[in-house]
């Protein structure tokens, strides 16, 4: 089962990479830089999915106090920090040639940075707590708090000022050409598979570390 899971993830990542590099045409305005989108958008989706997992498992840990929920919370928080960091990095690499700046005071950039900082905070609180059991509880509490706060941060920054383009796929329909949409969807699926694989593996590792 594990081999099938790993194989599927690697295959999806390979197909996604091939579609992003060769099958996708360059964008009319962004040129070849559009290929960064195939890492950037899937990373952002994976970051928010990891944050949702950390929040749900954190809430379950605080409620039921079962160690397996703590392991999932730790894995979710680490992956939320990792993928939000990757989202920021790829966004900056794309922003410099396309927007002309590394950073812009835009809602999505700021809310992703806030997500990154809060999950970094959750991991620091866990590591620096005087008692490991307290650290587990505090990490779970920050994971819940962070996930509830980020949508509020996002909408308040949207109203304050925004530069980022609107969503290409949403309730108002699809505003992206099929030639770009297919590689994007495959890459999002690949990154979600990678996230699931990393979540499972990190949870196992956390349980092994704790001797569970």
């Amino acid at each position, binding site marked *: 089962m594990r081999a099938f899971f790993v194989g599927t993830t690697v295959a999806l990542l390979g197909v996604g990479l091939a579609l992003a590099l060769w099958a996708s045409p360059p964008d009319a305005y962004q040129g070849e830089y559009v290929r960064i989108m195939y890492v950037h958008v899937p990373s952002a989706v994976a970051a928010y999915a990891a944050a949702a997992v950390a929040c749900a498992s954190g809430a379950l840990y605080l409620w039921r106090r079962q160690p397996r929920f703590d392991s999932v919370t730790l894995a979710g928080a680490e992956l939320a920090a990792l993928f939000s960091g990757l989202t920021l990095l790829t966004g900056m690499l794309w922003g410099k040639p396309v927007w002309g700046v590394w950073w812009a005071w835009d809602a999505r950039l700021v809310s992703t940075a806030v997500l990154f*900082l809060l999950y970094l905070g959750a991991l620091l609180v866990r590591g620096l707590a005087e008692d490991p059991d307290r650290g587990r509880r*505090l990490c779970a509490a920050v994971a819940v708090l962070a996930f509830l706060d980020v949508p509020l941060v996002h*909408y308040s920054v949207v109203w304050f000022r925004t530069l980022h383009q609107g969503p290409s796929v949403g309730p108002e329909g699809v505003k992206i050409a099929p030639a770009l949409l297919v590689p994007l969807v495959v890459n999002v699926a690949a990154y979600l598979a990678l996230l699931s694989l990393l979540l499972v593996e990190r949870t196992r590792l956390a349980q092994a570390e704790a001797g569970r």
Partner: protein
Amino acid sequence: MTAWRRVQAVARKDLLVEWRGRDALLPAGSFGLAVLLVLGLVTGGGAEAAAAVLWVSVLLAAVLVVGRSTEREGEEGTLETLLLYPGSREDLFWGKWGALAALVAVLAAGLWCGQVLLFNASPRGWAGLGLVVVLAAAGLGAVGTLLAALLHHVRAGRLLLPLLFLPTTLPVLLAGIRLTEAASRGAPPGPWLGVLVVFDGLFLLVGPVLYEVVVEG
């Protein structure tokens, strides 16, 4: 003892300790004033930056007030003693929230007076601004109370406090700025009053629940 009496007793205790020691509001207020001066100087003291400078100084000074609250609990071990008393821990949250929100409201009101003087700002719309200060203090107090308890037994907790407090309270900062600008122009508040109300509602709903689990021994 009823829950309300417990809440009152905890809030009164915290305010009394502050009144006798004056070791949170006075240094934090002075620091806020220093931030007002420095930011006023570097931004040129123009009216367009006045609201932003005010709320940045309020937020940074509020971090100090929350930090002092964490420190005081650690130095004197009062939180552990309070936890030994019978009654719900939610009452502790509400009492501490009441005291902290009151301190932050006084701090914000004081810094607003400083901003009016330093930026030659018009004190127009002070009634609307009063509501903004109360709502912002309620939200900052809720996050501060929770984080003060959360970082109580964490090494380098005072260093982690700004890392968690500033990003979490970003909506309060943005809403405070836009509502202050609107109040001083006599303009409608737009969606910002809603942002503050939702923020307060969320953290006052989740705060007591999370507080109970973070203060456990």
